[in-house]
């Protein structure tokens, strides 16, 4: 009898509580669109262990994403504001507050590595990508951000508009023009210059979601295109 009572209490109180909890998790602010090879994440809710990230996995605020060698993850913000492609050997944190009809304070914090971004035009709130030394505020554009092991920050803007604010040194802010790159060195030194062709290539690579390359066999009748991953 006692046993039955316990079961009753359990099913009446505990289960609905669990269901309740399960049914109203912290709303996701992002979703993984594509995952190649070795990508793990720590969800913002349960930060205990690294779990393999799979496409269609939702990510709550404060989630972390880590990529291995030759790996890639493409992440979409649920407000449709943009795509972040996390390239190999990178570590990214995702922040944002779910507000009314939008996500406020969207911030992708790049601890290490390279991310590419493609951001739709932002109405009010800017789309932030930050690193320990600088914050980029993006208003609808594409480009990439690199944060080296030696703490050098590189921001390349392919198109659109953005600005970069230093968190070190004189905390200056620099508007970035299309086709320009800014380098922020750990000592606070800034180099603002036109992008090199290598950076252009890096950008194209970062936005290539297939991680793919092409090889062509040119023949008198046309060409054979072989698409492959590296």
């Amino acid at each position, binding site marked *: 009898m006692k046993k039955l009572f316990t079961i009753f209490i359990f099913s009446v109180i505990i289960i609905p509580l669990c269901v309740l909890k399960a049914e109203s998790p912290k709303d996701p602010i992002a979703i993984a669109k594509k995952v190649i090879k070795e990508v793990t994440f720590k969800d913002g809710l349960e930060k205990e262990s690294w779990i393999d990230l799979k496409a269609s996995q939702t990510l709550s605020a404060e989630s972390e994403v880590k990529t291995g060698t030759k790996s890639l993850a493409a992440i979409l913000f649920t407000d449709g504001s943009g795509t972040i492609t996390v390239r190999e050997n990178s570590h990214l944190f995702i922040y944002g507050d779910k507000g009314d009809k939008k996500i406020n304070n969207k911030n992708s914090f790049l601890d290490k590595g390279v991310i590419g971004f493609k951001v739709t035009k932002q109405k009010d709130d800017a789309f932030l990508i930050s690193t320990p030394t600088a914050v980029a505020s993006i208003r609808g554009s594409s480009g990439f951000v690199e944060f080296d092991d030696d703490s050098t920050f590189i921001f390349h803007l392919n198109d659109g508009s953005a600005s970069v604010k230093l968190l070190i040194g004189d905390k200056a802010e620099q508007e970035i023009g299309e086709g320009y790159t800014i380098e922020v060195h750990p000592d606070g030194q800034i180099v603002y210059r036109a992008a090199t062709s290598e950076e252009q290539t890096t950008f194209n690579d970062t936005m290539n979601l*297939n991680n*793919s*390359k*092409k*090889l*062509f*066999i*040119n*023949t*008198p*009748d*046309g*060409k*054979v*295109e*072989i*698409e*492959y*991953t*590296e």
Partner: protein
Amino acid sequence: MKSFVTLIISFLLLSYSSVLSQSTTIELYVFDTSQLDLSAFLFDNNLSNQQRIMQVDIIPTGKKVVLEGIVSWKENLNSSFVEVATFKTNTFISRTFFNDEIGSSEILFAEKNSNSSVVDKIRTIGKPTGQVEIKIRVFDEKNTFLDDTYKTLTFENPAQTLEITSPFSGDELNPLDFQIAWNEVQGAEYYLVKANYKLNESQSDESALNSGTPVINNFNAGARLAINTSEPNVLQRELLEGSQLVIQVTAHINGTGGGSNLYSKIVPVTIQALTGSPGSGIQNNALNEINGFINNMVDILPNPIVNDLRNSIKEENAIPIFEVEDEDGNGKTLLEAANFIKQLKKDGKIISVKYLK
């Protein structure tokens, strides 16, 4: 009187024995070789299957004799002989025999000695070098010296290499005449030259050399160090222009059991196409390369695409445009590309293959 008789008998016996001793002669024949294994000088009763390098003739036969041998070694032309080993046999009935019978017949080693420091020195070199002198003495059963003889063997440069000095690997040669030359191998009895067609790129040089009827079929160049292909009897077949050829020279060094052969590295060359079909020199090579590439793609690309590739080069008159390049326009040689694409296929990295016509 008695003592006189004794004296006479003694004298007769003595003189007989001295007559005997004077008439016992020993003759030594040694294998004419410039290379031997050190094991040939291992003297032991228990050894079987020794190399047959010496023949000993004791005349007359049928007498009880003992044989003593001394082996001396001279490291190089500037040093002098040192004794390496000596041996003495038991008493045996004189006859003709070979060295490999000592220890394995009724003739047995009774004593053997060696200078281990010299043996070690030779062992460190690894092979007999310089000169070896073999001295043989024959005694009667009472150890009275009867006769002796010796022979010297010269071992020249035992660790030799044979290299073809002309042509060089990859050379394009005139079909009517070219020279094949090589370095000298000391002690080589004769040199053989072999050349054969390499039918396709995938064949290994060695496999090409040993397939079918050679173009130069072990032509014996004697002791010469070069031959010309325009010499009579060198070629066994007409040299096909535009073909690939592999060449090897073998030095034969006389020795026991067939002697030994020293081989050169195989040198691959091309025969110039002077009279081939139009543009055959360049065009056939290019076409062969393209065909080779397409054949390589058979297991890798889808069938229809391979067939399309084949057809694409069929109706061309001049050298077809057939190149492989990456997205940035960097070219790859067809061989590089074939290996690269093979690897991609192996690694399962090909996403798609399309023919954009």
